[in-house]
């Protein structure tokens, strides 16, 4: 009995000091891996991958557009898990992670929309089309903005966390709609060509830089998530110290 079972990592990370210690260990290796992945991915995107037989050189937009779409969905899926962590498990770091992730997800969604527009104009002849895929991604962007706004609107972090968690879980309905929109409705957007039954339809010479850019985006996501979570923890500590100082001053005055 002298050797009590070590708590699981996710339980140990409930302690901000344990989270900060792990984050400090991981941050620089992640930064270096992220820069290396971007360097290799961008080199592959411009120099080793061929032009497409139909789209020509314009296909090079794919290497920044498609990974941005992956990360937009991945970030939201992670936020949905965090929302469950807040509502069901009451994990103290779940809402910190969720708050830190929302602007990152919004940025990736915005990149997806803008680069998609730059790709659509020469290929489809239009900057924008109200089809199912484009519209559902725009709705995802608006949900991200709504979540960020809700965090700012509620002062009490506990109440804010619960409200945001509920909104996040409601918004998660949009994820399968985005993924399957190209199958369920007639859209200008092409059907899935990487994550599909039967394997990717893209040649390896294009798939490799695409995956490397996806890895670079993913590593950047983790770097930014760590930095933003550390910032949020500091801001909460600042808030507590200010309240304690005000309380102390009020007692000294009264």
């Amino acid at each position, binding site marked *: 009995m002298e050797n009590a079972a070590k708590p699981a990592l996710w339980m140990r990370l409930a302690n901000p000091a344990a989270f900060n210690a792990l984050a400090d260990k991981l941050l620089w290796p992640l930064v270096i891996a992220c820069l290396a992945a971007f360097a290799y991915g961008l080199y592959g995107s411009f120099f080793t991958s061929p*032009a497409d037989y139909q789209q*020509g*050189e*314009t296909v*090079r*937009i794919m290497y*920044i*557009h498609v990974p*941005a779409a992956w990360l937009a969905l991945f970030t939201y899926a992670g936020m949905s898990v965090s929302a469950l962590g807040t509502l069901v498990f009451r994990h103290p770091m779940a809402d910190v992670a969720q708050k830190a992730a929302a*602007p*990152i997800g919004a*940025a990736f969604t*915005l*990149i997806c929309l*803008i*680069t998609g527009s*730059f*790709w659509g*104009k*020469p290929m489809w002849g239009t900057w924008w089309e109200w089809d199912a895929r484009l519209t559902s991604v725009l709705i995802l962007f608006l949900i991200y903005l709504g979540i960020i706004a809700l965090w700012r609107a509620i002062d009490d972090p506990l109440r804010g966390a619960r409200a945001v968690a509920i909104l996040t879980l409601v918004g998660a309905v949009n994820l399968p709609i985005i993924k399957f929109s190209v199958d369920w409705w007639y859209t200008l957007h092409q059907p899935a060509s990487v994550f599909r039954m039967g394997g990717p339809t893209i040649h390896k010479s294009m798939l490799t830089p695409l995956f490397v850019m996806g890895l670079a985006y993913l590593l*950047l996501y983790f770097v*930014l998530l760590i*930095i*933003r979570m*550390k*910032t949020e923890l*500091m*801001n909460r*500590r*600042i808030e507590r*110290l*200010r309240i*304690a*100082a005000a309380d102390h001053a009020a007692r000294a005055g009264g």
Partner: protein
Amino acid sequence: MGQHGAFIVASYIATGVILGALVLASLLANRAAARTLAMLEKERSA
């Protein structure tokens, strides 16, 4: 980069600007919080 080179360049620039702004904003917010926290901790211990 062919006849659509401007669209390719614009896409990469837009991506760089958005990601650069996000990284910069995250770093500045982190620095500001660290500075404020250090100041408050110092006041508290004084």
